[in-house]
Structure formats: structure tokens, C-alpha cells
């Protein structure tokens, strides 16, 4: 029997994944390029296809605040945002993770003002890496849909109880169309049972939640939160396997390797750029070069173990990211180097900053990144942090 396939955008895939996950309440506020998701969800609620309450909140801060209220009575919450909206709910992000509310949120990765830009980059979510949310970055619409379903299963696991952010590149994923396989509702229901949590207010067992602590108790809560994030690594891998066994799509859990087996030079990617890098890996392999690709799927928890395992056998690692931490380097690069610092004879590493504010990254740009890595291996001096496709010469 062939499964149902639809030609849809990333935003629509997220809406369908959400519907299949049967949230009780959706609270969201519109922002480009997330809007199509909330529009589709509104239509599904209107038609009765999705039996959920849709809350027309007046801001993202309220979207997150309402989602916490929903979760605090044991109901399943969904929200979606992007960029300025994500920052506007920043207070709520830390609050939700500290309160252990397993809310699932889609974030359409978009540049941050100023200057204003509606186009994609990853500075919004990466600037909130420390907010205590699980962060996954997807490569295409299919993965976006599948990860919404997996997200609830991971976030709601009693050893995890941590909110979950699914990041997809603005426009490149949210607004491009592809053929997406739609899982059957019945099978999703088998995979994802209704939400159960001990961490809720009820009349059978009244609770006072979201309390304050003195310095005598605070650290233990933060320790537990950190533990839960580490616990999620096993759960992520188990859920990936269980999902694959049921729906025949495996994503590799924390990371996804591509032609890494005997690779000497490996590019680490985040999000939709992975597809283009994969093509260049194939091209270079055809030329006889030993290259590979490691798609970082999760930024939190961080795939340290997987990166270390790979790094032990390679000569150079490149990190491509649509992000910069001003005054330093790319945030993904910093995280990767932190992992590399834990092994002897670590490979050299270069950082390729690109795609910010929606700037194009072409195949030849990526090809040149690999060339730079090869040159570095040969001992030629390369800039450690490279801005790709700058329109002007720099005097550094």
C-alpha cells in the first residue's frame, strides 16, 4: 500500500504534523515566515478536522504564557513563531523550561532586526540556545512534519519533560514546496499516546506550581533541568528508531552522517544548507577527494559524543552556519570547538559564516569552503572565521 503524499510547503508540513499530534490548544501570533502554519491550523480548527482550541493571543509573550497555562493543567500545547517573536517570548522560554512544561514550538529561522530583514538566518534560535529548550534543526519539509510528532514524544517523556523547538530555515524551507509523505492518523495515535504528566494542577491533587526558591534549593532544580536535557539524548535516539520502524524514515538521532566513513575533511551543517553540501560532497567524491558531511540535528542537547567520535579520524572540520556571535565567532563553531578540545590531536577547524539575512549560498561557495579546508590541511594559512559572499572587500 502506498502512503498518501502531498505537494506542500514547510509551513504546511508543520501544520499537518501538528494536527496529527492532536494538541489540545494552539496559541500563536503571526509573523513572517511562520504565518502559513498558523493560518492552516486555524482552517483545520474551523473545519473540525483538528479538535483543538485556537487562542488568538495578542503577542508572542502571551502565546508562550498561555501555552504554559495549558501545559500546567496537563493539556498538550502548540505554538509557532520566528525571529522578533521568538525574542519577544524569551522570558517565557526560560520560564517554560524551568517549569518543565513540554510545549512544542515551531520556529521559522529568520534574521533579527536591525536592520530589519524577513529573510532567513539562524541568529534567532541560536541566541536562545541557553533557554533550556531542546533545539532541533531540520533539512526539509518531511523532516519538519516528522519532527513535530517526534517532538511531543521526546518532550513529554517523564525523564525529559522539557520544551522542544523545531527550527526550519525561513523561506528556504517554510515557503518552498516538496512532496511530503503524510503519516496515517491511526499510526500516529499508536506512536504518540495522549499527554500524561505528574507536573500539573488538578482538583484531585491540588498543587502550587512555578514557585520561588531560596539559594538553598535553586541549584538542585537547575541540576535536574540539566539532567533532563542529558536524559533526552537516549530518548531522542530511541524515538528516532521507533519512528523509523513504524514510518520507515530514520533521521539518525542527534546527527546524521553522510559519506564520513573514510573522510579526511568533513563539513558540519545545520538546517537546509545540508542538501547543498551533500551535493558538493558527491561532486568532490567523484573527483576522488575524501570528504564527508555531518548534519548536526540537535544543538541542545549538543551531540558532543558524535562529534568527538567523528573528529578522531579526520584531518579538518568545517562548520557552516547562518549566525555570528558578535565579538567572537559562529556559535555552532564555538560549541564544536568545545567538543574538539576534549580530544588529543584534534583536527583543525574553520568557520564559514554565510546566509545571514537571506544572503545566497551557492554550490561554488560550498565547494570553495572545502578547498579552503584542503589548503589548511596542506599547511597553507587560512582565515579561521570566514565571511562567505561578502559584497565588499574587508581590510582584515
Amino acid at each position, binding site marked *: 500500500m502506498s502512503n498518501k503524499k502531498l505537494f506542500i510547503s514547510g509551513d504546511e508540513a508543520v501544520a499537518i504534523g501538528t494536527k496529527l499530534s492532536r494538541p489540545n490548544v494552539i496559541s500563536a501570533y503571526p509573523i513572517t515566515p511562520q504565518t502559513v502554519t498558523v493560518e492552516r491550523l486555524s482552517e483545520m480548527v474551523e473545519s473540525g478536522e483538528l479538535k483543538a482550541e485556537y487562542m488568538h493571543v*495578542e*503577542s508572542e509573550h502571551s502565546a508562550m504564557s498561555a501555552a504554559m497555562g495549558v501545559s500546567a493543567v496537563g493539556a498538550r500545547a502548540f505554538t509557532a513563531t520566528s525571529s522578533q517573536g521568538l525574542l519577544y517570548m524569551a522570558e517565557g522560554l526560560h520560564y517554560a523550561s524551568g517549569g518543565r512544561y513540554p510545549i512544542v514550538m515551531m520556529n521559522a529561522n529568520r534574521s533579527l532586526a536591525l536592520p530589519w530583514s524577513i529573510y532567513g538566518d539562524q541568529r534567532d534560535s541560536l541566541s536562545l540556545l541557553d533557554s533550556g529548550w531542546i533545539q532541533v534543526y531540520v533539512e526539509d519539509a518531511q523532516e519538519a512534519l516528522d519532527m513535530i510528532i517526534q517532538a511531543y514524544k521526546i518532550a513529554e517523556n517523564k525523564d525529559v519533560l522539557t520544551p522542544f523547538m523545531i527550527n526550519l530555515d525561513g523561506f528556504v524551507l517554510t515557503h518552498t514546496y516538496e512532496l511530503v509523505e503524510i503519516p496515517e492518523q491511526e499510526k500516529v495515535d499508536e506512536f504518540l499516546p495522549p499527554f500524561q504528566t505528574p507536573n500539573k*494542577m488538578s482538583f484531585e491533587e491540588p498543587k502550587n506550581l512555578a514557585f520561588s526558591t531560596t539559594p538553598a534549593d535553586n541549584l538542585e532544580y537547575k541540576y535536574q533541568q540539566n539532567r533532563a536535557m542529558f536524559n533526552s539524548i537516549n530518548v531522542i535516539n530511541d524515538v528516532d528508531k521507533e519512528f523509523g520502524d513504524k514510518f520507515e524514515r530514520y533521521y539518525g538521532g542527534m546527527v546524521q552522517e553522510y559519506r564520513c566513513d573514510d573522510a579526511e575533511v568533513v563539513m558540519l551543517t545545520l538546517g537546509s544548507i545540508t542538501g547543498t553540501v551533500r551535493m558538493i560532497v558527491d561532486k568532490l567524491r567523484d573527483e576522488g577527494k575524501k570528504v564527508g558531511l555531518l548534519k548536526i540535528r540537535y544543538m541542545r542537547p549538543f551531540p558532543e559524543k558524535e562529534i568527538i567520535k567523528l573528529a578522531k579520524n579526520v584531518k579538518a572540520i568545517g562548520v557552516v552556519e547562518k549566525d555570528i556571535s558578535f565579538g567572537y565567532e559562529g556559535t555552532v563553531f564555538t560549541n564544536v570547538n568545545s567538543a574538539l578540545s576534549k580530544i588529543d590531536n584534534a583536527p583543525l577547524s574553520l568557520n564559514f559564516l554565510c546566509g545571514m539575512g537571506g544572503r545566497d549560498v551557492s554550490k561554488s561557495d560550498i565547494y570553495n569552503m572545502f578547498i579552503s579546508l584542503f589548503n589548511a590541511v596542506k599547511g597553507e594559512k587560512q582565515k579561521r572565521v570566514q565571511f562567505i559572499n561578502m559584497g565588499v572587500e574587508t581590510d582584515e
Partner: protein
Amino acid sequence: MNNTDIKRITPKNITDKEFFYGHKACAGCGGSIAVRLALKVLGERTFAVLPAGCMSAVGFIFPQMAFVNNAIISTFPGSASMASGVSVGARALGLKDYKTVVFAGDGGTADIGLQALSGAIDRNEDIIYVCYDNEAYMNTGIQKSGLTPFGTKTTTTPAGKNIHGAQSFKKNMFEIMAAHEIAYAATASIGYPQDYIDKINRAKHTKGTSFIHVYASCPTGWGIPTETTVQIAKEAVDSGLFYLAEYQNRKFKLNKNPKSFFSAKDYLLKQARFKHLTDDDINIIEQQRDEKWEYMREHWK
């Protein structure tokens, strides 16, 4: 408004059950009286949501939780939105016969939480929003809020030679709420507890959003003896500086319309926060009061 259809709660039949105790509020805290009385009316099937502020700060210090019923602290700006989520989430799960109430301070209501509150009323969420008004940001050490009255000395509106305390008047929260055509809005004072209880009861029996603005004295922030809390909250009304009113079905109603006022000067000067006021300052306060009353007497029959 017509309260005859609702079973009245009076000192004779009010429950002996306590829902808010063991907290660490200062002696004579008016806010804690407002919370305590409201919960006696609303009962145990109530979810209480409290933003940052004195009542959450004194009620939820782990491991000593002060609410017998379900309660949760929200972010400072997010009480109305979190309460909305609680109310809608419970409904989505099929829960019946429950109430969701917010207890927020004046700052949490008139300033930082106003947007979320406006949104909740716009959606006509089934929540009761109680603003306990102690006329400043008390929890952070008595700073000026949008409901701090003219002339008040706070830690951010010092009373000196050049400026005599706060220079703005109280934001008109009650009418701002009414302008939303909210299902039910009222002002109250812990100095008139029966009136306050009646209004909470009315809110309990209202479908949709209710808002109750209750004047709640704060001995610590106001500089008054703790045993005068209730008396001073009564005098605020008797002097006409606060008023008791209701709004429902597009109509305003003044619940108390005294022929003459208790001396505003007496009310003010017994509080440390107003000690510096000159006769000119008090004239400004009285003039503003009289204009307000002229308007209310004409329009709110």
C-alpha cells in the same frame, strides 16, 4: 447591578475554610486580605494565577506553599495570558465547574500586564482578574506604578524641594476595562469587605471576563500602623479618592455616593507617603477628585 439572583455570601454563611495561609506577607497586608476573601467566595475548584509581585513572593517560597487550592506564578507581564491558557486548557480537557482567577498588583495590571489583560478581555476568556491595588511596585521596594496617585512619595518619585513625589494621576483602570465592553467590571476596597465579597460573587457567576479593582492598603509601603489597614482602605473611599462602582451590560453604576466626603487631608497626612504634601498639593488632589465625582454623578446613575 442586580445581585438578587445570586446566593449572597455574608459573615453568617461564609466558609470557615482557609485557602491562603502560612504566607509571609507583612502584618496588616491589605493584598493578602483581598486574596483570602476572594478565595473563600470562589472555593476550592479554583485555579489561581499570580504574576511576580508581593502576593506571589510571599505565597510560594519552596517548600512552604500557601495556597490550598491550585495556584501558579506567571511571568510579571503574563498573568492574564497564563490564566487564559489554564482556563482554555482545562476546558479542552473537558473539565467542568471550575474558576480561574488572577491576583495581580497594580503594576502587574496597569503597566506591564495591560496588554495581556486587554487581549484576554478581547477574547472574553472565562477568567476573573483581581487587581489588588497598593498603589506602587511594593515587591521591588515601593517604586512608582501607573496606579500611584499624584503626590505619592515612592523610592523613584522622591519628595524633595523641587518635585513633591509622583506627578501623574492614577491611570483609570476601571474605565479602561469598561471601554473593552468587558462582561463585568467593578471597583472595591478591603475597607468595605461585604461589597467586595458581593462583587467577587458576581464575577464568579459571570460568564466571560470579569475585572475587579480592589483597593488594598500596604502598611509597609504607605507608612501606616499595621492595625489601621482596613480603616485606611475605608477612608480612601469615604474621602472620595477611591470610589465603588460597577460596569455591566454597557452601564456604569456608582455603588456609594456620599453626600459629603471624609477629609482628604486627614486621609493623606496620616500616611508617611503623603506627609510632605503642601496645601497646594492637596488642593490639586481635591480638585481632581471633585471633577471625577461630578462626572460620575452625572453619568453613572
